């Protein structure tokens, strides 16, 4: 491999590495946000399950 080939490969690897790093950072951030959504969903009050307990009645 010539010197020019090494430098060109390095340049493209740098581009790839930076984009990969960015995607990894974004993925970690989205994971954190997902955890926060789960945490908030756990804190929210549960909805009453009244519909299932009601007996059907004729209407009209």
């Amino acid at each position: 491999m010539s010197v020019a080939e090494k430098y060109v490969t390095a340049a493209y690897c740098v581009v790839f590495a930076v984009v990969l790093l960015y995607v990894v950072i974004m993925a970690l951030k989205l994971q954190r946000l997902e955890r926060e959504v789960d945490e908030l969903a756990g804190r929210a009050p549960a909805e009453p399950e009244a519909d299932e307990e009601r007996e059907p009645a004729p209407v009209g």
Partner: protein
Amino acid sequence: MSAPGATIRRTVGLSRIPLPALAAASLVLVTTALVLVFFVAPTDINQGFSQRIFYFHVSLAFTAYACFVCGAWQALRHLWKRDPRADLQSYVCVHQGLIFGALVLLTGSIWAKISWGHWWVWGEDELVLFLILYLFYCAYFMLRFSVEPGTQRANLSAVYALFGVVLIPVSFAAIRLSKEFLHPRVFTLSGPNFGGWILVTYCVAQAALLVLAYTLYRLELAGKRLDLRLRELREVLA
């Protein structure tokens, strides 16, 4: 010829493309560009193999410029129409522009080392002006995060992003004004200084990086919006 209104509607329609589809398009285009760069494009007679950096280096530079212009456009929308989404969109555009700008400086330095024997040449107007443009946008973040979130921060950031866009034509024109002529001039008033497979490869690389930038923009914007809504929800629940 299409009306300007139709062009704007088409641009707005881009936001409806699902993120996975954009990611797949980016992957396909970047892979195609790399295949063309390393296996199809001919080797340059003057610069040899090292000229292959050109395809991504120049495309990265134009993508960075496009991000900064888009950031300025969103900033204008914020100031003019008071669109509540525009401030965040402008911020994400500038952030993308900085990432691509950093890649331009890195790939440019590597190319300079092969071609000129130096990592950086301070006498080259084009290089120095691009660095000034880059540092100007770095200062955008210093300004933005030194002000409390709210209308004042959004307004200050928007005005700064609008001023920054003035530096882009200066940076681009510096290639023509430079006396040293060390930096290659690939685009002239009569068109590009190349053709055939070199032009095809360049166009594919440019399209690939623009689509990649848009995909990353959408990804970051989605994350930022979710973060913002979660904070609001936390405040409501607190």
